[in-house]
Each structure stands twice: as C-alpha cells, then as structure tokens.
C-alpha cells in the first residue's frame, strides 16, 4: 500500500510499504477513504516530537471501510463505514471504565518509555512517537486498528466523509477543550489559535452556551473563519495588544475561561519570543508556550484555563504564580475521543454543526509532503488538509494498487 512515511525533520516520502495485518484478536483493518493532517503532525514534521524513528507512518485522523476483523471483534463487520479515534483504548481498564480513554493503561507497548518522561504513560496513539506506542498511522491506504471493538464508530452513509472525518480528533478535541471550561450563561471565552482545534473550540463554546467568544490569531483568513462560522469577536495579535484588548472587552475582569489551542510551537514577538526560540534551538526548552503564558495572565480570577495544546515536555517561564494567586483551574489532556464520538455524531446528524467547514484543501495522499509544508507555513490560507489515499486508483484490488503505486512513483 501507499503510505506517508516520516524520515526526519521536514522529510516525508509517500512510498510503498507492506499492507497491515491483523496482529491481535481485537484488531481490524480498514481501507482508508479520507485522512487528514493534524496540527500535532506538524510538530513531528518540524522535529519537536521525541521518540520518532525514520520509517514511521504518520497520521491519526482517518476513516474508512472495514475490510478485515480479528476473531474477537463482534460489533464490526466487513463493509462497515467507520471513523477511527486517534487514541487507542482497551475499554476495560480503570481509566477506560471512567471514559478517560486517552489514559488507557493497556494500549501503549512502550509505556515504560513514556513513564521515564512523564511519570506515567497515557494511551497509545496512531502515527505518533514511539513514546506513545509507535503505532503505524493512517496517512496510508490501509491501517490496522487495535481494540477495534472499542474505538471506531459506525457512521451513516448519508453523511459525507468530510462531515464525519473530524470526529477522529479535532472536533472532539475542540469540544472537550470548551467543555472543560465549565461554561455558564453569560461567560466570555477567549481562544488562542484559530487552527482546526481552535475553530472547533470556538464553535463548541458557542454550542455550550458561551455569551461571547474571542478568537486570537494572526492570520486574517483564520480569524475570518472564526467570525463567520461561530460569530466570534477577533483579535489579531500582530495588530493589537491582546492583554489590553481583553481588559477593555471584559470590563477589566478578564475572560471567564481561556483556551490554549496553540501548543508547543507558539509564536510571539519581542523579548519572550526570541527567548523561547533560542532556548528551544539549544534544546534547553522543549516547548514554546507564549499562548499559555498569556492565557494564564489574562484569565479572570477564579477562571479556567483549558489546554488542548499540545505540549510535550518542559516549559519555561510559565507564570504559575498566577495560577495560585488568581485561583485558576487548569484543565488539559489528550482528548478522550471515544467518549465524544457518539454525542457529537448526533450533533452533526441534527445539523447543529457541519465540521466540513474547516477544510480548505483536498489533495491526494501523494501530495502529503507538499501539503505538510503548505499547512505549516499557512500558504494559500491553508487551515485543514484532507488527503485522499485512493484518488487515482479506482479499484480496491490490492495487487493492482501495488502496481499503480509503483507506476505513480
């Protein structure tokens, strides 16, 4: 099959690799019909994620058709159309029982590695660091899904791929970020970053009853999306002083909740921006957290700072004094996608939200290296790329696919 393979910083190749096989009784194999590039894939692309090995297949936002199931998978059958959640969860452990699927205790075969860094290991993830299992990802024509009886959700045929694809990650991630804000009537929510996760957080904050949502970014196209799609007020941090603007907008009190949907490659101007870049370049700091710093200092007393992030390692000059002295609540976590898929699918079916709105680019899987660069550099106002693994291949016949793949190369 064809797959998007990581070979190093800014080095991706779409090439032929062996097809995935069932390895465990609860596995399933899906033929992928749509797969997306996530903002967190860009951290891998830029070389900020430790524990990658050259040869890793990327991608954790994908959907498709079940083509094979293991002996213990009873809820799925060949032909089912499914969307797959990015964390791998067993459904039986202490955390899964509490619907905290991204903390599954049984899905990371390299748990000890993650424990060295974080003390305890979260769930395994598709197409990510070997710290998180090193599972082959879904920017490919096929993928193996472990614990397929717990993760993938069946979706109705009348919804298009783009309407349901983002149930795999960014929609639940934005939704959980907003839900964790504990929004009450009259609340103002500020959201840093208007990429896909930020946009879904903004939209979800609205759905959850926020009175005002303030979107912060530096790209006009993204800010425009935020205001068009979710009626957000917008702040371009290259044009206004965000801290001051938030003061003025909220009567000096600050937003009731702040969401950091930027994560570890945040941009900042001035002294702190340079400071972070230098420290990150010298490997003295793994993550650049300007958005988090600002969220903590601008959030109102007793407010909530929700951090979908992503952050991976060690952050510098985070004003933790603000957390204590302003009695802030911090909420974070990789998304418990399995918990949100069904209720959010219902929102889509009801027509409350059309997630396809974030898509700006539709490309072939072969275009992945170009698509990553475009997405990273926000060329052509890129917000979300969907890749089609079978764009040039009309049949499902595996032998023919191999051939076609070779010819294309």
């Amino acid at each position, binding site marked *: 099959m064809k797959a998007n393979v990581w070979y190093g910083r800014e080095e991706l190749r779409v090439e032929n690799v062996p097809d995935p096989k069932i*390895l465990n009784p609860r596995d399933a194999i899906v033929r992928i019909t749509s797969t997306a590039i996530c903002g967190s894939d860009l951290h891998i692309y830029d070389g900020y994620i430790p524990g990658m090995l050259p040869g890793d297949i990327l991608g954790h936002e994908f959907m498709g058709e079940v083509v094979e199931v293991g002996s213990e998978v009873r809820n799925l059958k060949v032909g089912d159309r499914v969307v797959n959640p990015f964390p791998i969860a067993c459904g*039986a452990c202490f955390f899964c029982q509490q619907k905290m699927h991204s903390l599954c205790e049984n899905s*990371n075969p390299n748990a000890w590695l993650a424990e060295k860094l974080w003390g305890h290991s979260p769930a395994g993830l598709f197409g990510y660091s070997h710290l998180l299992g090193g599972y082959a990802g879904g920017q490919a024509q096929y993928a193996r899904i472990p614990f397929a009886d717990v993760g993938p959700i069946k979706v109705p045929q009348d919804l298009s791929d783009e309407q349901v694809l983002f149930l795999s990650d960014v929609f639940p991630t934005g939704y959980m970020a907003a839900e964790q804000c504990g929004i009450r009537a009259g609340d103002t929510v500020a959201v840093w970053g208007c990429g896909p996760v930020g946009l879904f957080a903004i939209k979800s904050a609205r759905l959850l009853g926020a009175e005002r949502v303030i979107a912060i970014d530096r790209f006009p196209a993204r800010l425009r999306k935020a205001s068009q799609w979710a009626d957000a007020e917008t702040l371009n941090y290259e044009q206004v002083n965000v801290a001051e603007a938030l003061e003025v907008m909220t009567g000096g009190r600050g937003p009731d909740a702040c969401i950091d949907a930027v994560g570890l490659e945040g941009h900042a101007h001035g002294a702190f921006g340079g400071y972070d870049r230098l420290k990150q370049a010298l490997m003295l700091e793994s993550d650049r957290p300007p958005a988090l710093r600002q969220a903590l200092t601008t959030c109102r007393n007793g407010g909530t700072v929700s951090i979908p992030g992503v952050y991976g390692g060690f952050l510098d000059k985070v004003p933790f004094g603000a957390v204590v002295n302003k009695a802030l609540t911090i909420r974070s976590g990789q998304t418990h996608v399995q918990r949100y898929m069904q209720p959010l699918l219902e929102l889509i079916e009801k027509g409350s939200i059309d997630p396809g709105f974030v898509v700006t680019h539709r490309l072939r899987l072969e275009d992945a290296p170009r698509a990553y660069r475009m997405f990273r550099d926000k060329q052509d106002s890129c917000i979300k790329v969907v890749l089609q693994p079978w764009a040039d291949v009309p049949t499902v016949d595996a032998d023919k696919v191999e051939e076609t793949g070779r010819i294309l190369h």
Partner: protein
Amino acid sequence: MAALLIGRELMATDITQQGLGRSRLHSSGISGSEPGAQFARRGLQRGSDGLQSADSLEQGLGWFSIALGTAAVAAPRLVGWLSGSRSPTIMRLVGMRELSAGIGILTQTDRAPWLWSRVIGDTFDLAALSLAFTRGNRRGRAGVALAAVAGVTALDVIAALRLTGSRAGQATSGVAGRIDIYLERSVAVSKSPEECYRFWRRLENLPRFMQSLESVRQLDEQRSHWIASGPLGTRLEWTSEITAERPGEEIAWRTLEDSGAAHAGSVRFETAPGGRGTIVRVSLHYSPLGGTLGAGLVKLLGHDPQSRIREDLRRFKQVMETGEIATTRGQPTGRRSLFGRVTQQWGLTV
C-alpha cells in the same frame, strides 16, 4: 530472613536451612529477627547509610564536570592556555562533553553510564595531554594538567566502579556488605483477586506474560518445571515448589535444587480499596553473588530486574483486562535505519 520479607514464617527456616545461598545469608550476618516489613521498606529506598560517601563523591565529580565544562565553553582559550592545549574548538568540545556528563551525573537516577562517560573522557584527555607533554613546548603546564587529570581519573574510576558494583543496589538493602536482592513490584488490575489468582495458579499461563519464560509444566500439585531463555541463548531450567498458598490471596514458591536460578518468591492478590480490583504484588528474593546459585537468574533478569518484573506485571494486567498484549510487531513501516531495525527487532520494551 528472606522469607520474612515475603511474610512467610514457615519459609524462613526453609530457606536459611536448605534454600538459596545459605552460606551467604549467614555470612552477611542476617538474623531472623528483623521485621520483614521494615526490610522491605528499606529495600525499596535507595542507598541510605552505606552509599552515602559514594554519593557525595559522585556529586562532587558532577559539579566538577559542570564547572570545568562551563569554563571550557566560556573561556576556551584561557583553559587551553592553562592546560597547554592550543585549539579553542577542541576546548569547547571538551567543555560540552563535561557539561553533558555533569548534568547526567547530577540529574539522572542511573549515574553509572555518565560516570563511565567521564572515565572515557579522561582517557582521551590523558592521551591528548601526554602528546602535549612529550611534543609540545609548554611542557610545564601540560605536566601539571596531566597530573591533575590523572588524579581525577582515579576518582572517576573509583566512583564508576563503586556505582556499577552496587547497581543492583537499587534494590539491595542499604546496609553495606549485604548481598541479597529483594525486589517488590505491583500492578493494579481491574479484576477480582480470585480471577487473578486463578489465572496465575494455572502455571502453564505464566509464559503468556513473562517474557523470558518458554514453558512451565506442572509436575504435581506443588512442584513445577520451568524453562526460560535469556539473552544470547542462555537457557535455564529449574524446578519450583509451592511453599504456601491461600486461594485467592497468595502463592509463595521457591526453587528446589541448585538450578542456577535459585530464588524464592511470592505473589499476593490484594483487594484494592474502593472496589477497584486487585493489587497484584510480586516479591522476589535471590542472591546474585551467591556463587553459581543465583547467577543464572541475574542473567535472566538483566541489569534492571525491577523493570523486567514491572513489564511482566504490565503484560499480566493486559492479558487479564483485555485478553491480549498490545503490540506493534509485524506492522508496516517504511525503511528503517540500522538503529531502527535493532530497536524494532528487540522491541522497545526491556
């Protein structure tokens, strides 16, 4: 004594009289009166009294590395001049090396490799300085530097050897001179103690989650034959006997004859508070320096026996809770580098 750790009065006499490494147990002066719980606590703590002096030597070397490294990076010419070396680039590299060694020694729990990295660095420095001493025109300074480095090298070697010798000291008791190893690891499993016990008691199940085991065959109610394979084709066989058993609560065992894997152990299934399943607690007791007796087991468990047991327990949990063991072996990948192939071949697990 050994058995008291495991909380088995009965086994105490058994082991000291006929079981593993009896001479060692006596010669290290262990009396049977020490409360097991206290020993266990101390066993889990790292280096109390006995390792104190070694600790401060390592700390000193760590800070020395930092100081020298900072100086060499910040003022390569000055340090180069003092040591009779000419190239500031080399001095900077030396500085970086010293800094990384220093940070490693001061921050990492396993300091031995970092101390050995200092020893290797020292060797390099000695060679370079000897060259400067024999050939250079600044022989005086080079000579002084050579003598200084030789002194530091001696300290490094002492510290590194001491640490490597007591590496298993992560688990040994803190009292100097004692050579029993006592390990205890536990895992929380969302199944009842009875279910966990039942699976474990069918000893044929054990190879499913204990990575180095090839097979376990039950000989009769109490005795079982074990075959294990270790790294580099090591193969071990032994016969174990269950010495105590409380269904749903505990199984204790020990090896029968001088099999090269002499040990005593127990697994307890404790009801976790709040109806949260079971805490499965494994204790293992063996004598790594007890002649040939425990040596095979040491090979089997590798340099980090705690982790090995922890990984096996993690796999036990996976089998109990999910019916399978999470894996990526056999999944598709792109072209792996040599490093990638090696890590993939051996798995990233210990």
